[in-house]
């Protein structure tokens, strides 16, 4: 079974945090952030929640696909975490849109949306479901150490969604995991029992901790190898690719990957300057923006490639059929 993307949507919080705003919070500057990351601003949740952004994105995607809540028969949310440890974000979305169907979250960090396309394809293949709502909503400002100038500049909040149905548009899918907590992690521990053994992960505010150089190296290799293999396997030439949607973690990663691949530069969809890294929401937000602005042609070949904490990676080739 394969899938067809029937509709896409996205939502960002209203508050825009510029590099100048950040330079008043930590020792940094607009110039430093732009030259090292390519980011100019990011959106941060104020009155919004992970659930409210997810619902806004989901409703737009459903409207775009022309489906109603009673037609959605599975809700899948790739996310680092919703507003609650439990219930899942997916359950909040299911209730919020008024669907009556199973719902679950899935964590593959920034590769989550691509992982979800694969899971959705398998679910559709069972024949039990016809319309799957995938919503990536990320509130990364909650996991950001706002005193750490190395990571505070990188992340933002936002949500992207897609409605998927049966079809034959997914042409290639490759997922991988390379478990290693050292280069990138956030400890998932708040309370601690007094007699707990030492040496286990200590509470750390659940903040992102990252070795930027390691992530950079991994990411550039993952994208270039992933996309080269995808094109070879599908018998596609670089010029056959309509658009490339890369995970937006750092402009320097995107530039290094672009240099190694022969796909024309202008075919890369880029919004990191406006939103920073929004983890699993990155790719569906980009898809929605490019679709909304009429930049995608029916039938064109899209390459999606992401990498993230885990490390995880995902690369897929999809025909845009809208």
């Amino acid at each position: 079974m394969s899938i067809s993307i029937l509709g896409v949507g996205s939502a960002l919080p209203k508050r825009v945090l510029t590099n100048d705003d950040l330079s008043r919070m930590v020792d940094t500057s607009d110039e430093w952030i732009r030259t090292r990351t390519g980011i100019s601003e990011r959106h941060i949740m104020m009155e919004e929640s992970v659930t409210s952004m997810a619902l806004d994105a989901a409703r737009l995607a459903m409207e775009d696909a022309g489906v109603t809540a009673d037609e959605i028969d599975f809700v899948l949310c790739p996310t680092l975490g919703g507003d609650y440890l439990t219930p899942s974000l997916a359950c909040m979305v299911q209730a919020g849109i008024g669907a009556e169907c199973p719902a679950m979250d899935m964590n593959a960090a920034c590769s989550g949306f691509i992982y979800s396309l694969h899971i959705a394809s398998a679910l559709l293949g069972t024949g039990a479901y016809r319309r799957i709502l995938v919503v990536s909503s990320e509130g990364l400002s909650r996991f950001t150490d706002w005193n750490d100038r190395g990571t505070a500049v990188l992340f933002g909040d936002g949500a992207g969604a897609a409605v998927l149905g049966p079809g034959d548009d997914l042409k290639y899918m490759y997922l991988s995991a390379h478990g290693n907590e050292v280069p990138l992690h956030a400890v998932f521990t708040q309370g601690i029992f007094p007699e707990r053994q030492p040496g286990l992960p200590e509470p750390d505010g659940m903040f992102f901790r990252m070795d930027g150089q390691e992530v950079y190296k991994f990411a550039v290799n993952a994208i270039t190898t992933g996309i080269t293999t995808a094109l070879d396997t599908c018998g596609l030439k670089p010029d056959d690719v309509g658009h490339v949607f890369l995970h937006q973690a750092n402009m320097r990663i995107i530039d290094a990957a672009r240099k190694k691949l022969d796909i024309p530069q202008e075919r890369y969809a880029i919004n990191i300057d406006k939103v920073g890294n929004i983890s699993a929401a990155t790719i569906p937000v980009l898809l929605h923006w490019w679709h909304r602005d009429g930049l995608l042609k029916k039938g064109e070949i899209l390459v999606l490639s992401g990498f993230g904490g885990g490390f995880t990676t995902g690369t897929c080739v999809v025909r845009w059929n809208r």
Partner: protein
Amino acid sequence: MTTIEKIEQIIGEYKEIEPGSLKAETTFEELELDSLDLVDMAMACEDTFGKTVEVDENLKTVGDLAKILDAA
């Protein structure tokens, strides 16, 4: 072509440098390479020389890099 000349060629893709100006004692700090430039340069060296280059506190000068790349 010497190892240092090859390194010069690789760094030349990121920074404008006078040909022949790179010396073993030239530091990456002098060349104004930031941490991600260093990783990128290390990756390019790995591709060219087939050696693993760790970017750590021991990698300060062009000579340090040449020594890694020349090691058997």
